[in-house]
């Protein structure tokens, strides 16, 4: 791994943008749509409406570290993640999908969406390898751009969310570093 500015030590005088200053839901949706069309299938339509969230959910995400630091998180039901993986692999999909196959494919979709979200943000930024599991917690409710869609009748959410808590109100007299 190359070392990069983790963005975790910032001075209180810095103005840190929140994600909604940098990207809007329509852009995130169009990135996801392109990923679905190309990877999942040309006629795979994402309907931008929230669906009933399933009980058993799983997330895949990549972290972006740069002028804006956070994660691009895909969340859906486990069954849907499996279906997505199958669609991605098409006839290369094995008879029985192993847990690793789903992790790998679902993670790769997060990588593709995340890479394109990163490129739409001010850079340069680093991109982490994808992870799969329980989504990182939202640290700052203002620093989130979330799009809810329905794919093949199942809800999928794409959340671009900051990794840093809100900044304290800056004090003009102090230049101390704020531990985050």
């Amino acid at each position: 791994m190359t070392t990069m500015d983790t963005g975790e030590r910032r001075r209180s005088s810095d103005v840190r943008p929140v994600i909604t200053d940098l990207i809007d839901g329509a852009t995130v949706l169009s990135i996801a749509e392109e990923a679905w069309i190309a990877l999942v299938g040309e006629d795979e339509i994402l309907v931008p409406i929230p669906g009933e969230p399933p009980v058993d959910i799983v997330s895949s995400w990549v972290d972006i570290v740069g002028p804006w630091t956070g994660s691009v998180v895909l969340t859906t039901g486990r069954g849907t993640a499996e279906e997505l993986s199958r669609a991605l692999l098409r006839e290369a999909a094995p008879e029985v999908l192993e847990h690793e196959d789903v992790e790998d494919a679902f993670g790769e979709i997060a990588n593709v969406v995340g890479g394109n979200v990163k490129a739409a943000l001010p850079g340069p930024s680093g991109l982490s390898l994808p992870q799969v599991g329980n989504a990182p917690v939202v640290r700052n409710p203002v620093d989130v751009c979330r799009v809810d869609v329905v794919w093949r009748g199942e809800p999928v959410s794409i959340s671009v969310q900051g990794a840093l808590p809100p900044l304290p109100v800056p004090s003009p007299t102090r230049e101390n570093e704020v531990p985050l």
Partner: protein
Amino acid sequence: MSLTATSFDWVRDLVRKESAIVLQPGKEYLVEARLLPMARQMGLTDVTKLVETVRVRPDADNTRRIVEALTTNETSWFRDGDPFTALTSTVLPSLLSARGANERLQIWSAASSSGQEPYTIAMLLDDALPNATSRVSITATDLSREMVQRTRAGRFSQLEVNRGLPAPMLVRHFTRAGNEWEVSANLRRMVNASECNLAAPLPRMGPFDVVYLRNVLIYFDLPTKQSILRRVRDLMRPDGWLFLGAAETTLGVDDSWERVVIGRSSAYRPLKGA
């Protein structure tokens, strides 16, 4: 009303005939999704009505729009690269020696769709000529207002720039704009886009040194092909060059052209005295 089997079969046959693309059974909903915007634009409520309308009154423009709506792949950069290779290898040197140093070269990309062809030409000439912006003017026309607007904007999606645009040209001539790529202002200044129906009398344009009229004639019947070629010829300089689609020719359509083989492609030049 959802798409009837007869309508789907008609669309299938049309698309196979015009583009060699086979729509598999079960793709009815895809046909509906792709054609619904066109139906709505024509004031029709659904795709079956659109198909009925075009079946009863066949019309080259609507036929072309249907085929294009179902064949998104028609718009790659450097599509059939040979006519572009011919531009820089043969046509440009010949024009530069025939024209005065201050004479503007005029190029017409007819049926320019979302702009890949005129911007491909612009990039090639910008790389080949030190003063391309002042030396070359590219006219891009298309039947569709939406396509003309897209060409003017010069913005392309990630999927579009992936289609045959060499990476060195992407980084040289484009910048990122949100999740799209925007062609440089320099190139946008070289390209003037406007609406134009090739099957109707043409507006005053040109005279053109080079015309790209690719994959358009195939949609028209013989008399219309002939009149389009005649009108195009009237807008060209006597020593101009015409490029047609790889599957198209003037032979047997209009004998006032001379076919010139350039590498792996062919150009057509107005026959003197014809």
